[in-house]
């Protein structure tokens, strides 16, 4: 078991059994470490090939190979090397991979090395060593914070034509390939009693404690190696090395079925009520994901309790030229040496204001690296073995063009000393990683004793914080806090347990004297290294009154880079406090917002990409329509046949005209299943519909259908359809395709919230029935061949607006409605959906002798426009029954949703818009939906606007293009010739105002 576990998840300590003897395999490689020494991996950086080991990051491997220069800064293109060993890295950003997988701005410090890794430096031209844009650095004195707000204003046109294009070209960091990402992403959902965020000593101890108590535990860490700082330090836990203890803990956790260990998983945000977002990097450590496997997974974690054990981040000290490649955080240098067996250079100096910095010196010396000096700002700095100590001293400058060569030190006695060093390990103290505590209402509080902000205020619901994230920096304190935190969290869930015996571990106190920046020196001391924000910029912001933290941030861009100021915000804040003569807490902190580290679009989209972006709904006749070569169109989530091209038809209009004419002349068939169908039952069903519809339904006889108009409470028409009464207490209501969900929701609102005692039951049956419109003079003849003979559907027995339950095709139950959208003699016939495919084939077969055609949504649209029926374009959410010419339908005799407010004066103006039809004066002119209406003469302007055309089509029946739309006082302007203007496309035509009922205005056909 243990072995299996050791080889799973993490790179085990010396798992390859080697002695770890590999000193000098790469120029800066040391012995030991937690990397696998067995086989070397090959990778390239800027086209040059290097070797590293499994367990390396790109950063550690580059350092091992003696590469310090890894990037260029955003603004001045200063040469930069790696500053940190974690996700807080501001400098070492690269373009990883290539083609569709090209990944800009990837931190070399978290990019796991794999064989064949390809990385390139970014934001430089032509090369990292010789970056032309570094010219900016020469002019840095002109390009201070916010300089661009004060210039580039004259002449006005130049900003967009000259300055901005140059700036945009120069700006940005990495680039994308513009190819589609070939990888798949996934999403998932997890539930737990306790979510442990971070798997350092605190998190592991918490997970062990909770796991042993039987709780459902998830422990996640952004690193591929669990253990946090234990992997970077030399001190042990109990009688084991830190790393060995981690391995033991991981083995025990892996053996617990109630614990889920998630390495390579970053908790990106703390959302309401214990929900956390987590991104698991499944395949980023290999060349490419296995087929079908995701690159990353977004997990939504539902936690009852969460413990933040995210550790702390070291902060630098600002001094002149503190940004040269080789200047690094002390803890990072130590991590590279202990975990990755790498030293950034053979000679290293240390600059610190606290004891922790001394550990770096000690560990390097132990590994045989020459430490040329330990510079400690504290006069009472502790002794150092094996290196020269300068107590009460400061680094005031550094030299080395593309890499550090030496540091100039101001000694306590005032003299200066130049210390040779290829790397300078800087420690300004540690900041607890409070980020997730701020994602809601938490506001950190200042703790003087550790000179850092710790979590405070209103933490996210059910979150606790432990260990270094809470300001407890020693290993012993971390283990204790983890165990006790878990016990406390579980007891809130009613799971009682004990902390148990904790292993022995170092318990050194934090010994730090706040020191933020070296005041000496005319040059630039860097705070935000990626955005090139210096101490001077902060001073300027103060001078110009950008003094609130947010103003400082926004004016100088401090902390707005890809690292979100994880290493820089604190320094800027401290300096602003000093300038303002305030205490740091008075100045406050900027907001930390999700995500904790940046997350890819791909993983947030998951599987919802391409054609699967949203579900696709198919009609019962879809398969048949495909066979007919139908052209489909998206209608909401539905795919509907738009038209059915026939051999020889070269233009869609030919197909649509044919479908319309054949339907009007003989018979056509259309799948209308997509219309919403809601089954309404109960003693009060009729009374309920009276409330829902503007017009009356109580007296609708059984076996009859009635058109109904639905208003919103504000009196605007929002949907229409029919209600068929199958029994005293049973109706079937239809809605438009677009509003099916909305109408059902609103009816439930009325049923549950407005009329809770009505005896009404609702349920959708939209998908249960395959429904086909059979329209045209031969509709009845056709149907009589399909409907079983015992059912008389003659005009007398089954008149217009009749409905009933019948059987077809020898016993298949069906519903028949005598309703017409086309204006022809028409029926809608419904059969159980599974028979829909067979039914359309049956209908077409039966219609053969009449030359029956299938028609699609285009022909449907043409025929409804010819009849002047309102549809989506007319029910646009701003039109009332009055506008639609249905004002009289709104019953004043009963209460119904919308009738009271529909009486407001503004909705009943003299010249209110009315739905009318439009015919081109010149028959060849196309009427266009979206054209605005203007009087025959007079100016064309918004002020003279008379209305607009909502729907238009070519009417093969009338042989010209027609339209319907809304015209001021339209109903009283029939016969008037006006203009339909479309300046957008440079068109203007004369149209005659006519009735919207172009075809068979008396409606004789549909009654025939």
């Amino acid at each position, binding site marked *: 078991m243990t072995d299996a576990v050791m080889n799973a998840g993490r790179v085990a300590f010396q798992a390859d059994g080697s002695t770890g003897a590999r000193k000098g395999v790469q120029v800066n490689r040391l012995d030991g470490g937690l990397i696998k020494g067995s086989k070397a991996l090959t990778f390239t950086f800027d086209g040059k090939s290097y070797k590293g080991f499994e367990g390396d990051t790109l950063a550690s491997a580059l350092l091992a190979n003696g590469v310090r220069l890894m990037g260029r800064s955003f603004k001045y293109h200063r040469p930069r090397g790696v500053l940190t060993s974690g996700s807080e890295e501001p400098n070492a950003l690269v373009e990883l991979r290539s083609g569709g997988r090209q990944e800009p701005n990837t931190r070399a410090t978290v990019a796991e090395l794999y064989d064949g890794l390809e990385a390139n430096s970014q934001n430089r031209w032509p090369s990292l060593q010789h970056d032309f844009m570094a010219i900016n650095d020469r002019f840095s004195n002109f390009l201070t914070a916010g300089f661009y707000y004060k210039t580039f204003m004259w002449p006005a046109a130049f900003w967009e034509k000259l300055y901005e294009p140059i700036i945009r070209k120069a700006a940005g960091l990495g680039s994308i390939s513009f190819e589609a990402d070939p990888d798949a992403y996934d999403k998932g959902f997890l539930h737990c009693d306790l979510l442990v965020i971070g798997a350092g000593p605190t998190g592991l101890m918490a997970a062990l404690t909770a796991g042993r108590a039987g709780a459902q535990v998830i422990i996640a860490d952004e690193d591929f190696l669990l253990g946090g700082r234990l992997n970077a330090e030399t001190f042990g836990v109990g009688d084991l090395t830190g790393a060995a203890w981690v391995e033991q803990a991981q083995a025990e956790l892996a053996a617990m079925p109630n614990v889920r260990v998630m390495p390579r998983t970053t908790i990106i945000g703390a*959302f*309401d*009520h*214990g*929900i956390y977002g987590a991104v698991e990097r499944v395949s980023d450590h290999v060349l490419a994901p296995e087929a079908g496997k995701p690159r990353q997974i977004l997990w939504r974690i*539902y936690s009852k309790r969460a413990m933040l054990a995210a550790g702390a981040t070291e902060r630098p000290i600002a001094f002149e030229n503190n940004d040269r490649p080789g200047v690094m955080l002390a803890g990072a240098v130590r991590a590279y040496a202990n975990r990755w067996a790498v030293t950034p250079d053979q000679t290293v100096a240390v600059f610190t204001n606290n004891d922790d910095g001394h550990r770096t010196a000690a560990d390097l010396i132990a590994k045989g690296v020459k430490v040329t000096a330990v510079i400690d700002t504290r006069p009472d700095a502790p002794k150092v073995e094996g290196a020269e100590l300068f107590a009460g001293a400061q680094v005031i400058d550094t030299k080395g063009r593309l890499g550090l060569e030496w540091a100039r030190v101001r000694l306590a006695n005032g003299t200066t000393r130049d210390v040779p060093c290829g790397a300078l390990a800087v420690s300004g103290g540690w900041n607890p990683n409070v980020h997730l505590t701020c994602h*809601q*209402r938490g506001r950190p509080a200042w703790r003087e004793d550790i000179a850092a902000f710790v979590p405070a205020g*209103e933490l996210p*619901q059910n979150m606790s914080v432990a260990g270094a994230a809470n300001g407890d920096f020693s290993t012993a304190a971390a283990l204790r806090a983890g165990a006790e935190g878990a016990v406390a969290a579980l007891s809130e869930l009613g799971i009682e347990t004990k902390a148990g015996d904790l292993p022995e571990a170092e318990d050194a106190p934090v010994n730090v004297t706040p020191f933020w920046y070296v005041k000496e020196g005319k040059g630039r001391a860097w705070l935000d290294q990626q955005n090139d924000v210096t101490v001077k910029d902060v001073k300027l912001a103060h001078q110009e009154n950008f003094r609130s933290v947010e103003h400082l941030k926004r004016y100088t861009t401090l902390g707005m880079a890809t690292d979100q100021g994880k290493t820089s915000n604190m320094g800027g804040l401290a300096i602003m406090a000093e300038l303002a003569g305030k205490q740091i807490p008075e100045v406050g902190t900027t907001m930390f917002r999700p995500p904790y580290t940046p997350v890819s679009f791909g993983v947030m989209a998951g599987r919802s990409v391409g054609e699967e972006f949203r579900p696709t709904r198919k009609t019962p006749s879809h398969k048949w329509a495909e066979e007919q070569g139908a052209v489909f169109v998206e209608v909401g989530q539905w795919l509907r046949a738009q038209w059915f091209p026939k051999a020889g038809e070269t233009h869609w209009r030919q197909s649509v005209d044919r479908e319309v004419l054949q339907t009007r002349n003989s018979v056509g068939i259309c799948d209308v299943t997509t219309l919403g169908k809601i089954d309404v039952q109960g003693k*009060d069903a009729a*009374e309920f519909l009276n409330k829902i519809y503007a017009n009356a339904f109580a007296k609708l006889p059984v076996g009859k259908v009635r058109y109904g108009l639905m208003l919103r*409470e*504000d009196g605007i028409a929002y949907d229409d359809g029919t209600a068929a009464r199958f029994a005293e207490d049973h109706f079937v209501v239809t809605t438009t395709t677009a509003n099916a*969900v909305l109408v059902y*929701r609103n009816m*439930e*609102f009325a049923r*549950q*919230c*407005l*009329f*809770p*005692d*009505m005896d009404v039951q609702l349920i959708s049956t939209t998908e249960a029935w395959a429904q086909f419109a059979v329209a045209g003079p031969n509709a009845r003849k056709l149907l009589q061949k399909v409907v079983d003979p015992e059912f008389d559907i003659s005009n007398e027995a089954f008149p217009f607006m009749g409905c009933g339950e019948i059987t077809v095709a020898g016993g298949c139950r069906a519903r028949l409605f005598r309703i017409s959208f086309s204006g022809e003699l028409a029926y809608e016939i419904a059969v159980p959906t599974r028979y829909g495919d067979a039914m359309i084939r049956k209908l077409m077969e039966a219609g053969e002798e009449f030359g029956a055609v299938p028609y699609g949504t285009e022909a449907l649209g043409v025929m409804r426009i010819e009849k002047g029926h309102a549809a989506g374009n007319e029910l646009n959410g701003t039109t009332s029954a009055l506008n639609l010419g249905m004002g009289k339908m709104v019953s004043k005799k009963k*209460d119904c949703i919308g*009738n*009271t*407010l529909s*009486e*407001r004066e503004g909705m009943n103006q003299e010249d209110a818009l009315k739905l009318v039809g439009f015919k081109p004066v010149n028959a060849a002119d196309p009427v266009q939906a979206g054209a605005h209406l203007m009087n025959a003469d007079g100016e064309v302007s918004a002020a003279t606007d008379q209305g607009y055309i909502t729907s238009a089509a070519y009417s093969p029946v009338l042989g010209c293009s027609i339209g319907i739309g809304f015209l001021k006082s339209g109903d009283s302007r029939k016969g008037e010739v006006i203009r339909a203007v479309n300046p957008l496309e440079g068109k203007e035509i004369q149209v005659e105002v006519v009735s919207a009922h172009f075809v068979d205005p008396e409606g004789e056909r549909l009654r025939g």
Partner: protein
Amino acid sequence: MIINHPILGPRDSQEFTYLGDAALIDRPDWQAENAADQFHDYLYLRDNPAGEHRELWFHEQGDRSWLVVTRNTVTHEILNVELARDVARARGRSK
């Protein structure tokens, strides 16, 4: 967010559709002589409190219950969840 459904227990708010202030239950009498004013206030005016807010959520991807959720609009803390139908009856709505 998590809404503690009175029948189903904790459910992700993503399953719900939000409407707004629970006062929308109190639809005025259409025959009141100042019905127009009452309907105006009912439909258009809101307390919009920064704090406790009683509001209507529809469990559309669930059991299709309308719920009245009492939620703090500043902290998003949810203090109470009731079936809207019960609330409506308690407020005297019937047919």
